């Protein structure tokens, strides 16, 4: 990803945009922060917040005409936050000491004509930029009509004190009546000139000319003007100030000979892009000051401030525990991920973040601007793999499992028995085959009897793990193997049981005609005994759509119709169909970050008290693994006597079982469908207690790893023996991982007590 792509992507997350109040304020006062501080009674902090953006906060804080209030999102929910009153209350508190940073002086000098608010602000801004400023006034005192305000509004001593800063910063004042003839000499003597149209001197010199929007230039010769009235002929203090400030910036740009207009789109009031969800915000009436004109008491101000919604977006964080976990928001994550990729030396601290996203795509559905964290993370993974920086442990297991599925023990491509061709081919995928091989056999014979007799079968992996891991080379390799086998079968239509497989076929092999198993079954007569023995089917179930089915409404409909035919009352989850949530397996989330996958599952399983109904084998296993009674749709179509009455109670299939199931599936199919009795080697039995097996699954240690390790120990004699209980401990490093197994001999195999592994390799230098 380059800088430009990052900027492009970043733009889609609008969380950092100013809330409505701030963007409506011509001076962009940080209203949200200010109001938060007032609510907490932190008056010094609130003062400082005002001081950051308000020129003469003691003055403006008392007289601002607060256009922000009308834009406030509270407007329709009890009335806009009364920012005018809150500012007043704040500047009535003692002013904290605020350090002024000295500014280096610039050589150019600027002329400001007029003594009213716009001129004072222009002068202040120019002084703060380091210019030498001379102000021309026909009056004795700076401030103009400000002196005419009643004391209750703006006490005279406050006004006086607030203006002291101008003199401190070295403002020169010349008392002089100005007219149009004097403009040319001013231009001659100064780098740029400001005319305050809210002062008699300035108005005279401008001769009815109106300044341009944004730049406040009167022409193109270094004369600028501000302090105009609105369409009703009123002067607005906050607009006067804004125009003085904007003109000062133009004067600086003019002097530096740079563009006057560039990058000023968001200056002044503008509509915000920030989205804030106010659906669940209760109306709350504004606080009225008990003492009327005198304004809020401190407690009243705090109560009013607490009505602020603290507008922000974070819609995606509300639905994604992963996004929530990292305590930021996608725009920030995008930058972290970008920086992570740029690191040459040092720690890639965002690797785990990149690898944890389930690529489920929910954020994109929820986000008002369609930000896709999945695209971002998949891109970053591909980049890591390409640069050989992908942590090996993140996806290794899944990739090895995929390699297993694409090897002899599972790989199969056959026409139906006694057929030379296939019109269709059933492709169950690895997960269903690993989770419930009997269902694959039953489905296959169902399809031959009810859909097309010449339905072939392919056992293989769809390469989703490689795709998810960002490994493009491995994805391509697996895809071409898939394409080759499909061609060998005569380019048939593919019937896919898993929506992740569907997604992969559509993404990488779009010329292959694919259809979901559920759409096929929806058009068939379901088996007569379907759902019958299952009492559970009488109870309503909550339907869980897999995240890879998000954009496949036809598939989702087909599943719902099948459930209706089976007589299973379905309750829709709040997050279903295009807003469905991941089971924590997608994107290899569970491989890279089991703890967060757990959080994802906790969220999903808590959404309904009902048992869940899944139609992806992986979703079924994940949900069940998280303790949620979950059935698979095939459990009702092909009820299995062995399972007992409640398929939702069937235990989760472990990793070793999944592999062994796949291998057994191929053997059973060859035996039962094609009458080829395969040779079966006799394997030693492993006796493993369930709690030990759970540990093995959690550590991703397979029975095959254990067998290899024991064989190694027994053959070489390299093993340890416990002096306590006589158990053996052997270790073996077939590839990247060293396995340790604690075992003892049993009559027909071994008892397994424990097993663990590490990736570091032990090297004896002087054995």
């Amino acid at each position, binding site marked *: 990803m380059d800088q430009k792509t990052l900027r492009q992507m970043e733009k889609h997350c609008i969380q950092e945009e100013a809330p409505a109040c701030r963007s409506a304020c011509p001076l962009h006062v940080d209203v949200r922060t200010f109001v938060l501080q007032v609510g907490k009674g932190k008056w010094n902090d609130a003062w400082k917040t005002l001081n950051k953006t308000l020129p003469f906060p003691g003055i403006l804080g008392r007289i601002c005409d607060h256009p922000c209030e009308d834009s406030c999102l509270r407007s329709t929910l009890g009335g806009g936050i009364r920012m005018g009153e809150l500012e007043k209350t704040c500047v009535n508190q003692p002013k904290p000491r605020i350090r002024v940073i000295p500014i280096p002086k610039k050589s150019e000098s600027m002329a400001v004509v007029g003594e009213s608010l716009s001129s004072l602000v222009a002068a202040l801004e120019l002084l703060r930029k380091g210019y030498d400023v001379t102000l021309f006034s026909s009056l004795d005192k700076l401030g103009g009509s400000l002196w005419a305000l009643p004391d209750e509004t703006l006490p005279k001593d406050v006004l006086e004190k607030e203006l002291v800063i101008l003199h401190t910063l070295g403002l020169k004042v010349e008392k002089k009546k100005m007219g149009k003839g004097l403009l040319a000499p001013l231009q001659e003597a100064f780098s740029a000139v400001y005319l305050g149209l809210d002062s008699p001197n300035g108005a005279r010199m401008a001769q009815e000319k109106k300044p341009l929007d944004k730049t406040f230039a009167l022409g193109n010769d270094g004369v600028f003007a501000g302090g105009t009235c609105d369409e009703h002929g009123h002067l607005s203090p906050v607009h006067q100030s804004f125009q003085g400030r904007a003109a000062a910036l133009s004067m600086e740009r003019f002097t530096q000979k740079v563009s006057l207009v560039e990058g000023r789109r968001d200056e002044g009031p503008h509509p915000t892009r920030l989205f804030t969800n106010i659906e669940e915000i209760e109306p709350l009436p504004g606080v009225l000051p008990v003492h009327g004109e005198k304004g809020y008491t401190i407690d009243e101000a705090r109560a009013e401030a607490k009505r602020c919604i603290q507008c922000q977006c974070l819609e995606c964080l509300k639905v994604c525990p992963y996004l929530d976990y990292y305590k930021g928001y996608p725009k920030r994550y995008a930058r972290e991920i970008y920086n992570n990729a740029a690191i040459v030396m*040092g*720690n*890639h*601290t965002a*690797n*785990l973040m990149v690898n944890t996203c389930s690529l489920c795509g929910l954020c994109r559905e929820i986000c008002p601007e369609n930000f896709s964290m999945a695209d971002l993370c998949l891109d970053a993974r591909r980049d890591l793999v390409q640069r050989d920086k992908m*942590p*090996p*442990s*993140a996806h290794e297991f899944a990739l090895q499992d995929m390699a297993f599925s694409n090897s002899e023990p599972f790989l199969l491509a056959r026409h139906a028995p006694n057929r030379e061709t296939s019109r269709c081919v059933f492709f169950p995928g690895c997960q269903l085959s690993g989770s419930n091989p009997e269902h694959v056999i039953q489905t296959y014979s169902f399809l031959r009897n009810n859909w097309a007799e010449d339905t072939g079968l392919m056992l293989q992996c769809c390469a989703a793990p490689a795709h998810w891991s960002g490994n493009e080379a491995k994805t391509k390799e697996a895809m071409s193997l898939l394409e080759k086998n499909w061609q060998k079968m005569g380019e048939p239509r593919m019937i896919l049981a898993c929506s992740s497989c569907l997604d992969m076929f559509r993404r990488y092999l779009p010329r292959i005609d694919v259809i979901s198993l559920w759409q096929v079954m929806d058009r068939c007569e379901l088996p007569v005994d379907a759902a019958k023995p299952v009492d559970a089917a009488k109870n309503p179930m909550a339907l869980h759509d897999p995240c890879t089915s998000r954009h496949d409404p036809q598939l989702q409909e087909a599943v719902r119709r099948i459930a209706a035919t089976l007589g299973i009352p379905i309750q829709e989850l709040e997050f279903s169909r295009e807003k469905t949530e991941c089971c924590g397996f997608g994107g290899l989330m569970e491989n890279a970050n089991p703890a967060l996958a757990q959080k994802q599952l906790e969220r999903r399983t808590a959404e309904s008290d009902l048992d869940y109904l899944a139609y992806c084998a992986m979703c079924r296993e994940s949900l069940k693994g998280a303790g949620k009674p979950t059935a698979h749709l095939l459990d009702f179509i092909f009820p299995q006597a062995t399972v007992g009455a409640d398929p939702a109670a069937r235990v989760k299939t472990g990793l070793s079982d999944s592999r062994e199931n796949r291998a057994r599936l191929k053997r059973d199919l060859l035996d039962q469908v094609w009458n080829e009795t395969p040779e079966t080697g006799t394997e030693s039995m492993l006796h493993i207690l369930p709690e030990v097996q759970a540990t093995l699954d959690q550590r991703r240690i397979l029975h095959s790893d254990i067998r290899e390790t024991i064989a190694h120990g027994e053959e070489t*004699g*390299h*093993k*340890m*023996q*416990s*002096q*306590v209980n006589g158990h*053996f*401990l052997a*270790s073996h490093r077939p590839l990247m991982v*060293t396995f*340790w197994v604690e075992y003892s001999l049993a009559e027909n195999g071994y008892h397994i007590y*424990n097993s*663990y*592994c*590490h*990736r*570091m*390799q*032990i*090297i*004896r*230098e002087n*054995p």
Partner: protein
Amino acid sequence: MITNLGIGENTEWKCFSCDALLKLDKVRIDYMNGSFTVELPCCPECGMALVPEEIALGKMLEVEKLLEDK
């Protein structure tokens, strides 16, 4: 450089083929671009080293993760 994995003497396990008690000894452990010398219980005869479970799942795992993110 870690040199101390916090391992004490091991009294439970014996080398099966040499029938010898294990003694702490220096061994090198490598992963990716990292290489460290650490003390592990080893057979004084044939040199076979033991990585106890708590080390494999504790300190070693930590270091592995660090090296993977380098």
